[in-house]
């Protein structure tokens, strides 16, 4: 029974990472590619780690797994935010049909 739960978690995590790779390849813009990669890899790696924890339920594995999950959920949005801010500051080309861009307008208001 636990083998099947671990199997389902592993397959779902691998599927999320695959969706992230397809999004990185197909989307038209830096910011949309960032949106595709950062969230789905967080969820996918978390699901794979949950599968590992269910497969090997000893204290060391559970503790290290929860530590890695917390660390990934803390740092992955931070790194994505810093990279996207650097890309916006460098002036990378945006997709043609964005409605608003608050970071650009912020400089005029001041």
């Amino acid at each position, binding site marked *: 029974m636990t083998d099947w739960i*671990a199997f389902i978690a592993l397959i779902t995590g691998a599927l999320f990472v695959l969706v992230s790779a397809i999004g990185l390849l197909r989307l038209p813009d*830096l910011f949309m590619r960032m949106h595709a990669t950062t969230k789905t890899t967080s969820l996918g790696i978390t699901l*794979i780690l949950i599968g590992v924890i269910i497969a090997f339920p000893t204290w060391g594995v559970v503790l290290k797994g929860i530590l*890695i999950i917390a*660390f990934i959920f803390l740092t992955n949005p931070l790194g994505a935010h810093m990279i996207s801010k*650097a890309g916006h500051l460098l002036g990378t*080309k945006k997709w043609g049909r964005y409605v608003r861009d608050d970071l650009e307008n912020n400089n005029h208001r001041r």
Partner: protein
Amino acid sequence: MVRLLKGPTLPDRVISLDLLAFVALGIVLLNMIITGELEYLDIVIVISLVIFIATVAIAKYLTKGKDYD
């Protein structure tokens, strides 16, 4: 991998390297399941630390210390 070679700007390559590192992390976890050796989890900790440090360092290098202020 294609995006890493083709990507029009440098941040594209950075996020593609990020995804590649996460795929390597998943491969290490699957190898841990297959072989049953518990020491692979330390490798996963080190890889997740290195991903974060590399991303922040490259972002700081790209803007060269400038910021919206």
